[in-house]
């Protein structure tokens, strides 16, 4: 209420200062561009702030420094935002044709409007020249529209159930191989007043991981992708059954109480504080469970992971089928003034990232990793081995879907966990949205 006024006042003051300052600075900046030794300034934006992701931040800075050392005439100007702000700002920048020369983008539905809207430049030439057979299969495809690839993937994540080994041992629970065993494990934990699993279903996407795996196990590994491509309807009995099983778990008290009000981070807290025994999440959490100085050593030793159990009678019979996908990729802006240099930088960044990220930041890159002589926590070696042996990685449903359907999916997931919709309504509403989109 008062904020609006204060904000207006603040903007006015900023504007006035801006007007005064432009008088001084316009001369300065034009001199900068051409006169100062002809240095090329590249703008680079990423969303790994020092505070929340120090390992990423430092690694990026290290790579930038190396690049600048190799290319004396280039200066990289970095802008760092936190992910939510980044998500919004990049849309605003694109709307005014002011994207940074190089930046990061999420895959599929997020990247599509930028790519087809002519904001990103196709990078097929670099991919063919510098990255032949170097990306994990299925990653580049997530940034490919109409045969052109618009970003160099930097991350590859798959999803596991992480669990607290000590709690499991204390109550003599074996790692569940089937969904029934998982439910039984939940019963034992509940009896002993331990929360079986934590999930931040307010955000939708963490909740969706449970749904996606059940859909994969019940309906087979291709079902979600088929739904997106219109080959299978969202109202398919297998999907409805998956949603039903999710809600059964909710009814059984399998998940932490009040999860529809928890963000992913809040839910994670229950796992880190050992209040909950299981946490279904992706491998981007690995640093927190292995190397991060923020988690206690004692806790790190207790964390293990297992693959999502199989569903009796389901079509998905391979436990090596995962739900996962690429995270961020590097793009080059179509109207960058120094496109070639920008492309060089993007390629260098992704290449070096692939070489150093596992060791230095604990991130699994989308480029293939040579595990020989790799000095990392054994959990990484296990995960890298799993990725190599994976029979299928289904890209997250919400990532594959358009922003419109994705947002609806998140809403519906929260509603499913909050028991505000039945599994049938859950499927029907999304089917309607998908059908509406297909018509367009």
């Amino acid at each position, binding site marked *: 209420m008062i904020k*609006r006024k204060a904000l207006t006042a603040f903007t006015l003051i900023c504007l006035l200062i801006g007007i005064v300052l432009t008088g001084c600075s316009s001369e300065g900046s034009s001199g900068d561009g051409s006169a100062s030794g002809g240095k090329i300034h590249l703008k680079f934006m990423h969303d790994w702030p020092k505070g929340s992701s120090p390992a990423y931040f430092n690694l990026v800075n290290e790579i930038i420094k190396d690049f600048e050392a190799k290319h004396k005439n280039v200066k990289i100007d970095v802008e760092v935002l936190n992910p939510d702000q980044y998500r919004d700002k990049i849309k605003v920048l694109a709307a005014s044709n002011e994207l940074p020369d190089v930046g990061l983008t999420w895959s599929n539905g997020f990247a599509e409007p930028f790519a087809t809207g002519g904001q990103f430049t196709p990078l097929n030439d670099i991919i063919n020249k510098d990255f032949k057979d170097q990306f994990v299969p299925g990653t580049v495809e997530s940034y490919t529209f109409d045969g052109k690839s618009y970003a160099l993937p930097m991350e590859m994540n798959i999803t596991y159930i992480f669990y607290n080994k000590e709690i499991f041992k204390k109550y003599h629970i074996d790692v569940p191989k089937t969904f029934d065993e998982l439910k039984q494990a939940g019963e034992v934990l509940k009896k002993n007043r331990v929360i079986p699993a934590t999930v931040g279903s307010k955000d939708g996407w963490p909740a969706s991981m449970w749904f996606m795996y059940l859909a994969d196990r019940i309906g087979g590994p291709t079902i979600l992708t088929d739904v997106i491509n219109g080959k299978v309807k969202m109202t398919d009995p297998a999907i409805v059954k998956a949603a039903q099983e999710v809600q059964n778990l909710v009814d059984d008290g399998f998940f932490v109480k009040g999860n529809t009000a928890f963000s992913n981070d809040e839910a994670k807290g229950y796992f880190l504080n050992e209040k909950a025994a299981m946490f279904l999440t992706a491998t981007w959490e690995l640093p927190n469970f292995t190397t991060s100085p923020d988690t206690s050593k004692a806790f790190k030793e207790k964390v293990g992971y297992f693959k999502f159990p199989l569903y009796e009678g389901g079509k998905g019979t391979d436990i090596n089928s995962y739900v996962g996908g690429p995270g961020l990729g590097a793009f080059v802006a179509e109207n960058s003034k120094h496109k070639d240099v920008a492309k060089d930088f993007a390629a260098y960044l992704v290449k070096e990232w692939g070489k150093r990220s596992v060791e230095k930041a604990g991130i699994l890159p989308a480029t293939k990793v040579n595990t020989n002589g790799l000095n990392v926590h054994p959990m990484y070696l296990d995960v890298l081995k799993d990725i190599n042996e994976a029979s299928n990685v289904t890209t997250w449903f919400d990532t594959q879907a358009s922003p419109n359907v994705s947002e609806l999916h998140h809403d519906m997931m929260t509603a499913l966990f909050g028991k505000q919709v039945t599994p049938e309504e859950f499927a029907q509403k999304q089917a309607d949205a998908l059908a509406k989109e297909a018509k367009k």
Partner: protein
Amino acid sequence: MKTVMSRKSVIALYVLPSLILVLILIYIPIVLSGYYGLTDWNGVGKMKFIGLDNYITLIHDKLFWTSTWHSILLGLFSVLSLIGYLIVSLILASKLKGSNLLRKIYIIPMLLSSVAIAQLWVKIYDPNNGMINSILTSLGVEHTPLWLADPKIALYAIFLPIVWQYAGFYIIILYAALINVPEELIEAARIDGANAFQIAYKIKIPLISGVLKVLVILAVVGSLKYFDLIYVMTGGGPGHASEVMASYMYKEAFGKFNFGYGSAIGFGLLVISMAATWLIQKFLKTKSDD
């Protein structure tokens, strides 16, 4: 004649800078967002003009009206809370010992950023180890409420911190208005034998009615476009149970890339806010006229 003309141009010269700023920052964006509402636009690519389609969808959009109802509820709640603020301010203004200190205490929530307040209250409401439920459990309540996770109470659970957040602001304004009530009037009333309640009801409140009117408008309009705490605490959830107009607009525009439809919602919000302001002004005017 000449002097008048020159004065006019001088006046224009002085008015012009702020006029331009107001135009650029407020009126032009309003017109533009009204126009964007006529297009199918994902914020990046080309705009497609689709006439009144978005506005027609808006009128039939149940979710929009639900969120409007939630915003109106928040407005009612804020106006009702003004009564509480008025009572507190009356007490503070009555030369209570330590009222200076209390005033400062009340203003503290206003100094905190909305996000900090939201985080604070999320922790307080946590259904498993939050403050409220811990107290309830220790009192022997078995089925403690889920607060923000319960669609039936999430909205009201957020109202509380919102009211708490702005308490200081309203109390300060009311307090300032109350201490400006002339002392002679109160003294005269006291000599005539009026008690404290009568002085408050018959003298102080009528004298600050102008300020009260402004506060009612501020509270209602502020509530209609309210966003911060709701966005951080529940994000409009669970399942739109605490969705308000502004959060719905944000989700459409920035979540779903529907900048066209988002703009239409924004324009709807503007129309509703203006209508509310007009209604309140009309309502309060007739009352003070007779």
